């Protein structure tokens, strides 16, 4: 019976009642995601909420290159971005820190020196959202992102 509560308990309950109307949301404890989706919305039960084992590098390696690019550019500062970058590296993509784009050799470079390599490359243009080819491109090694991601 509610009337057995003390005044303090009744007061706490009324405050709690109001607080429960504006509960914390998951995004309250997360960094802001500028590109991310909005808050949670009710979805039917038959939509799976998460994929099993999706937090492993193996899972990311099975994703298409374009998916990895999407994760890399749209989920910045997350574990998923880290895994996407790792997976892209295993697929021989290299990140150019000035253009902020991923490059892959299209053929063996025509020239390789200590400071750069030159040849034909495929790169992912995040503005047009497509892969493009560039001939006679000079990849300066000082722009090569070569941090060990382990």
């Amino acid at each position: 019976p509610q009337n057995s509560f003390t005044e303090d308990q009744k007061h706490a309950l009324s405050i709690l009642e109001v607080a429960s109307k504006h509960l914390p949301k998951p995004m309250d404890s997360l960094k802001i995601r500028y590109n991310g989706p909005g808050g949670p919305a009710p979805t039917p039960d038959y939509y799976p909420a998460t994929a099993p084992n999706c937090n492993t590098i193996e899972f990311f390696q099975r994703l298409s290159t374009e998916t990895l690019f999407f994760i890399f550019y749209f989920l910045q500062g997350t574990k998923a971005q880290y895994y996407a970058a790792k997976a892209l590296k295993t697929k021989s993509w290299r990140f150019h820190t000035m253009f902020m784009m991923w490059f892959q050799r299209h053929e063996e470079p025509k020239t390789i020196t200590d400071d750069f390599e030159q040849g034909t490359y495929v790169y992912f243009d995040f503005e047009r959202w497509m892969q493009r080819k560039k001939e006679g491109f000079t990849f300066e090694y000082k722009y090569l992102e070569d941090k060990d991601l382990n």
Partner: protein
Amino acid sequence: RAPGSGPMGMMYSGITQAREFDDPPGLYEKTEYLLREWVTMYHSPKAGKDSTNAFSLFVHQMNLQGILKTDELITRFFRLSTEMCVDLSYRVLIDQTIKSPTVTRAKCFHTLDAYVRLIALLVKHSGDNNNTVTKVNLLNKVLGIVTGVLLQDQELRGVEFQQLPYHRIFIMLFLELSAPESVLEAISPQILTAFCNTLYYLRPQKAPGFAYAWLELVSHRVFLGRVLALSPAQKGWTMYAQLLVSLFKFLAPFLRNVELAAPIQLLYKGTLRVLLVLLHDFPEFLCDYHYGFCDVIAPNCIQMRNLILSAFPRNMRLPDPFTPNLKVDLLPEITQAPRILANFNTLIQPASFKKDLDSYIKTRSPVTFLSELRTSLQVSSEPGMRYNIPLINALVLYVGTQAIAYIQNKGNTPNMSTITHSSHMDIFQNLAVDSDTEGRYLFLNAIANQLRYPNSHTHYFSCTLLYLFAEANTEAIQEQITRVLLERLIVNRPHPWGLLITFIELIKNQNFKFWNHEFVRCAPEIEKLFESVARSCMHPKPS
């Protein structure tokens, strides 16, 4: 009373100073200007990684405005900034033109996150690099200020109070200060202590409007992981246990009611989830603190208590309780005492009662001690509140541990025959026979709380409960023992190992003549229930 200096003193003074409003003229405007500047700088692409460039420019501006001249001014700057961030959040939250909660939040976080980064940077860069005291003091001061502003806000706004800005400030600041940087790693125990103290200050009892955000903070994976992994000497465990106890205490009067209000149900569900995480990831923590937790959890919260009692050390392998002919006495663990991180001896009050108790245990006299026992445990005549539950719990565990020591001193191990005919068993039998239904229920619960993983307490109390059943002079006692065991077993899993062992022994061992009792057949569903338990643990089926 607040200690004068040191981190705690800084926090207290921060809380007090959150209520000072006699600011020097112009400070409000200066703070507003600086905060606005900082928010812009923080979001500018030129801010640099972790806002380093922006920060050095900003410190210069703070100096120009004379804010960094005295501690007093810095404190006021933080108080005003916190209030401004909170006020801004309120304006956004009540803005009817914004329909999407995502947009509302983005607007609030725009300022709150910038402010948090500023706090983190000021903490990191206060004093020189090796001066940890200054950094820790500043952190405690700021946390104290935010705490003070929160408490005051709740007091003034009442039901209009919003937890969002404070929740964001606390969690983001905690995450910022948990970054893998040597400056922060050097003070990581002090950071954790500061946050634990803050959360303790803001426990649901003190700040019910903050309770949901509070539980989010307490159960946040980074906070939980860091505080429970904190060495040395598992200081973090004690602090975390204190937070959980405050949560259980808050919930207890509400959970005692059969009809739960929706907001309580929500908080209860969250609490169960935290306990499940702890049971899975930190079972040793639940093992060590089970006594203190059971002391504050309402007696009718069976599942919540089962979660705590089911915890066992990860290096232990529990034999399946349904194994036929399982010889519990032969398990090597059964002689080892569990760790109890509660000073239950001192809970036996008043001192004169403890003196009489010790004297009775030693001399088995006078008999009047036993006849007065029931009165000593009673505190009121109101039904449901008659007994001092913590005292019953302490008495049961104390007498039990004394009995184990006594038996072991004689070179024996506790079993069905060595536990009998002693001052200890006199006390237990007296409590079983002489108590009313309520008192006996609490007494039997206190025993059942010790039926956990294989250890000397589990074994002793298992034998004790079975002995009390066998020697009962009325069927009411036997029915109540069965009830206490059964009600802990009919709830969903997990079930403590010792509880299953005891119950199986009771229905399996012919000596107890369990199946001959009236109450076993009192209702068809109860009878079916017993038979299903029996089927799963013994062969052949009982007649």
